[in-house]
């Protein structure tokens, strides 16, 4: 399902669908982010009320985990692996190239909203390093050329 505009009714339905789940907060936040793309203040408020938690508790969880976004990401999200196995195969150069070519740092989105660049510590592809993940798809043996191709292919989609 593609990302949708915030809807309190739809969000409430998602939260209530987790009513029988023990320790439901993470599954709820994942489900809301999948539907709405990010978790804004309205999401925090609604989840706190529905799960009978304080807003501080929910905010604390949202900001603890790097997966949860409080602002909408770019249309394409690329995560570059910074783990040691990737470093041994040139990921430090790839990190520099990614930031330089996109003109943004890790955790940032290009001004036109096309690409968000994230860092990640290990994608589990350590024998085919360096690795990146682009919109959830794992790619191995990535050099600067392949990185550029992945970005332009994503823009063309």
């Amino acid at each position, binding site marked *: 399902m593609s990302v949708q505009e915030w809807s309190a009714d739809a969000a409430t339905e998602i939260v209530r669908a987790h009513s029988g789940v023990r320790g439901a907060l*993470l599954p709820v936040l994942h489900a809301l982010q999948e539907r709405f793309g990010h978790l804004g203040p309205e999401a925090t408020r609604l989840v706190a009320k529905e799960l009978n938690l304080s807003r501080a508790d929910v905010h604390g969880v949202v900001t603890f985990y790097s997966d949860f976004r409080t602002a909408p990401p770019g249309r394409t999200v690329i995560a570059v692996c910074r783990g040691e*196995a990737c470093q*041994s195969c040139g990921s430090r150069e790839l990190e520099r190239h990614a930031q330089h070519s996109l003109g943004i740092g890790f955790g940032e989105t290009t001004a036109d909203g096309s690409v968000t660049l994230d860092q990640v510590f*290990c994608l589990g592809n*350590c024998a085919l390093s360096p690795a990146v993940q682009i919109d959830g798809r794992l790619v*191995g043996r990535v050099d600067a050329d392949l990185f550029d191709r992945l970005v332009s292919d994503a823009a063309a989609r």
Partner: protein
Amino acid sequence: MSTTVYIPCDSAARSVGADEVALALLAEAELRGLDISMVRNGSRGMLWLEPLVEVDTVRGRIAYGPVSADDVAALLDGGMLDGAAHPRCHGVTDELPWLARQQRVTFSRVGVIDPLSPADYAAHGGLAGLRAALGMRPTQVVDAVTESGLRGRGGAGFPTGIKWKTVAEASDPTKFLCCNADEGDSGTFADRMLLEGDPFTLIEGMVIAAYAVGAVEGYVYVRSEYPDAIATLRRAVEIAYEEAWLGADVLGRGFPFDLEVRVGAGAYICGEETAMLDSLEGKRGMVRAKPPIPALQGLFGRPTVVNNVLSLATVPAVLAGGAEAYRELGVGRSRGTQVFQLAGNVAQGGIVESAFGLSLRDLVEGFGGGTATGRPVRAVQVGGPLGAYLPADRLDLHLDYEELAADGAMLGHGGVVVFDDTVDMGQQARFAMEFCAEESCGKCTPCRVGAVRGVEVIDAILHGSPDERGANVEILEDLCELMTDGSLCAMGGLTPNPVRSVLRHFGEDLGLTPVSAGAPS
């Protein structure tokens, strides 16, 4: 007659084009009117050969790799479906020395079967362990696991049977079983490959564990960085319910066990068992003080077994083959097999499962064939980002829990990352602190603040005045000691491992002469 062709659906294989190869082969087969049936198996673990295509022939499965989509037409022209010779053909897969020299127990079915076929699973020995366990009393199952010598494969190496016994004997009627699939250590990917290549083995192991300790509810906590593994495992759980391997009446034997897949959210610390429990409870993944141990007060305060994927996935083999057979493998107090993950700058990386006793050299030079770049090996990091960097002259160390510990190193989750001589070890030491600063849960000050200070001090050593270098090294050593002694968990406690190993073995990269390094030993 239809020819069976295997092309992995493992995400590492897909990361270098396995899907494109599969599509090309299907299209080409249709064009030529060839009758093939394609199985998307797990990976055999020879990752430098991915995408690895296997063709079932009268001689056995014949391996071709690495195959790209562009190679498919030419391979078919050359008679690949009959197992014909080709520069990319390696012969019978099972006879490849790289595989034949291994002893695959935990990984015996990975890459061999269709991961989501219950029939394939049963035909390759699946459920034999569970059936054996259900023929025993729960306490006998616990005893068998204890006798097998199986130790936790997550890194700490705690005897699995002892942990189970503690939970089994706890009086609380509600007990939980949690599988830690938050495989965050860089250089490790065995959990992922097992989840994608043979998820039923993990489910079977968890059912056995649940029966042994009396748990009726289980969770698998998988990191979100593994979307393919999550999808495969979720589907496997659904199938297991359909097959009555899970549910209200497991195998018609009158005991219930429910299993749920939970997804992490990008926090390395949640691989620490108590942080994982907090995360499962819907909280920030903060480390808990022990005691109380999770076996007595774990998830939601109840007695909880927390085991790694590989520990639980080994249990079916232990029960099926008997504790004695498993125990006979290995050396000293490291019994059975270890699943090594050979990674980084290595010519032939992948999964090496072997009885304990291999040396680092067997692994890096024997299996790995040296570096991918062809340059000399300078450093090997064993056991993930909290493991020590060992120099090339330590390659004769044997990879078992005790021998590594005696040398200030650790086995961890079995990850081995190879670096060639272009590596800047000063930067590797700095990265260890940077990683800790990024991923610390923040509970313990020595870890939360110490890691930030660690980066600053290493920067001062690398870029500051040479006159102050000695004083800064002293500060760094003091900081390492404080983090080791003053942190609750392995994150803060072991981050000094890689840093100290750089001081000890690679001081020149920190601008220290070997004599003035004053490295701790």
